[in-house]
């Protein structure tokens, strides 16, 4: 049973299918915002399989082992993070106190893999993309952590189960975290390297950033990782900021889909409305505004916790 859960739901197969579905949703919303038709529903899958069939070219001077391992690493970290996030009930597959912190930690690994992938590729574009990815990591990581930990502070628990228990007892307290939710949405754009925070893979400047030298299966795996990251981050935000579940599995599952689709919709609208910021503007924005508001939110939550 456990093996089935890890493999099918909420494990590998569900993550794969849902990441294709969310990518399709993201692309169609983005397209409709731009007055375009958008792709058919099978386009993400078709893209994936087409890339799988392409030739893999590994640059001559690059360590073959690492070049091939990094996409796998990145995907594995995403999958591991996904297993610890509760989807349809307050408990994830392996709940323990502190699983929120573990998920945040695991979510940093894909970005580090992107950085390493660009760094070992030894191309100028991939090198610059790698440096930008790492710079951006330092910009969004702190506000993202603050935003996700603020609700946990209020709930007085580092676990998803504890957060869910607290907010189902005090549903009104969810409204306190609205600023943190906004920060988390904005920082998630940075995490997922989407417009306006897509400087690490800005195609008009540095081609494809860290992935420039990647091709074929390896690139397909990286693209797949990026899609999976979208699901993981959306699920994480849903689990922290919208932690209510139904007792019936089917209803709870539909609720989960609605929550994640809602979050991806917000992300897609952001992507459609903004121009790309420069990397130094991203850093300045994150440290000046997001961290400031994040600190206020934490202070507010500590005060509320003390008062009630």
């Amino acid at each position, binding site marked *: 049973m456990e093996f089935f859960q890890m493999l099918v739901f909420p494990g590998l197969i569900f993550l794969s299918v849902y990441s294709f579905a969310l990518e399709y949703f993201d692309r169609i919303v983005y397209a409709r*915002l*731009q*007055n*375009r038709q958008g792709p058919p529903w099978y386009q993400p899958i078709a893209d994936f399989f087409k890339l799988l069939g392409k030739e893999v070219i590994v640059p001559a001077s690059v360590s073959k082992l690492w070049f091939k391992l990094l996409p796998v690493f990145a995907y594995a970290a995403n999958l591991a993070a996904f297993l610890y996030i509760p989807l349809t009930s307050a408990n994830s597959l392996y709940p323990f106190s502190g699983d929120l912190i573990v998920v945040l930690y695991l979510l940093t690994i894909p970005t580090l893999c992107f950085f390493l992938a660009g760094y070992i590729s030894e191309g*100028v*574009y991939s*090198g*610059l993309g790698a440096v930008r990815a790492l710079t951006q990591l330092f910009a969004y990581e702190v506000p993202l952590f603050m935003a996700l930990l603020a609700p946990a502070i209020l709930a007085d628990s580092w676990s998803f189960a504890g957060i869910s228990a607290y907010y189902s007892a005090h549903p009104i307290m969810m409204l306190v975290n609205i600023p943190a939710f906004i920060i988390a949405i904005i920082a998630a754009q940075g995490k997922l390297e989407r*417009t*306006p925070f*897509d*400087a690490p893979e*800005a*195609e*008009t*400047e*540095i*081609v494809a950033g860290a992935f420039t030298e990647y091709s074929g299966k390896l690139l397909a795996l990286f693209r797949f990782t990026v899609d999976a990251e979208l699901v993981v981050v959306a699920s994480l935000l849903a689990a922290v900021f919208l932690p209510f579940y139904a007792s019936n599995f089917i209803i709870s599952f539909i609720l989960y889909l609605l929550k994640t689709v809602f979050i991806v919709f917000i992300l897609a609208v952001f992507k*459609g*409305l*903004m*121009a*790309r*910021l*420069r*990397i*130094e*503007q991203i850093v300045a924005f994150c440290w000046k505004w997001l961290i400031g508001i994040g600190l206020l939110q934490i202070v507010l939550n500590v005060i509320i916790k003390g008062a009630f």
Partner: protein
Amino acid sequence: MSKNLVIPIGPQHPSLKEPACFTITLEGEKVIEADIGIGYNHRGIEKSCESRNYYQALYIIERVCGICSHSHSTCYLSGVEKLAGVEIPRRAAFIRTIFGELERLHSHLLWLGVAGHEIGFDTLFMYTWRDRELVLDILAMLCGNRVNYGINTLGGVRRDLEPQHIDDIRRMCAKIEERNNYYVNLALSDATLAARLSGVGMLSKEDALKYGAVGPVLRASGVKSDTRRNDPYLIYPEIPFDVITYDSCDVFGRVVVRVLEINESIKIIRYCLDNMPDGDIIAKMPRKIPAGEVVSRYEAPRGEDVHFIKANGTDIPERVKVRAPSEANWHSMAHMLKGDYLADTPIIIAAIDPCYSCTDRAITLNNAAGSKRTDWEAIRKHGIEFYRNKGVDVSRILLPEKINY
């Protein structure tokens, strides 16, 4: 970073629509030196005009640029007509003006989309290109083609405007005006656009004049210069319109100048439609053009276009020299790139609305003696040899007998 990083942007790069090579030296993310390499797109257009008669050369000239095709052909024709001493009918001048302004409309809308794409604002790109289709549809309706109109001919124009066309053009103008007002608002109020474009690619008024910038780049540096006003041609002397200038001297100013110019173009088109006279659309032209030289100027969407034509009394031009507007704007490019971020390089390059194939004119070959001049015969030999090494034999292609090397 301790060592300066050298980044090649081009010859093949996603931000370039045509090949060119910008070698950017970086210190961190800042550009400290920029080297511009153009010349990948040389097509020998001027040379091929010299072996064709004036009518045939017109079709070559129209293909100098994919966007300002009407500008180049009108510029060339006004030179030839001046040499021949022929005055084109007034109705033909109106039709030429309408086409020129329609071309400016779609060129500026295209540029706005490209600029949006370069700064990662793809929504703007999709919107403006959707609206540009309205203009292209009108052009296709008027002359059958979307970009190379083939409307111009020596002595006038080839097709007349029908009354029902006029209604369609008016409807299109109303739509474009409505949408463009939205872009004007967007340009002047959107925060991310301003954050990305203000203070980027600075070119002061003095530098703009020193480097010989033209068109919207020059006007965005606060210089009120427009060939339609300075040296009017066709029916521009009688048309009331404003020369748009903006004094922010940066890419943001170039956006504002262009979106406001769209409204001016609509004004001009409306004036032409209101005051269109009846009459012929073509005047009789002599087959042989009397000997002489002429320089003609035209305000293309990208700036001032200059053609020099030398006639020798036959039906074939002796020399046609094209100075496309992009060529004048290249010179300030290295200056504009220096000191800005790498992230801004694509938009600074795009901000002059560069047209690479318009610009690439000549090729210099180094022969064994170390001299920089190579005659026509040697270039031909080099070309044949070059392609033979690649497995293609072009030596059997016959040249027109007119060319004597």
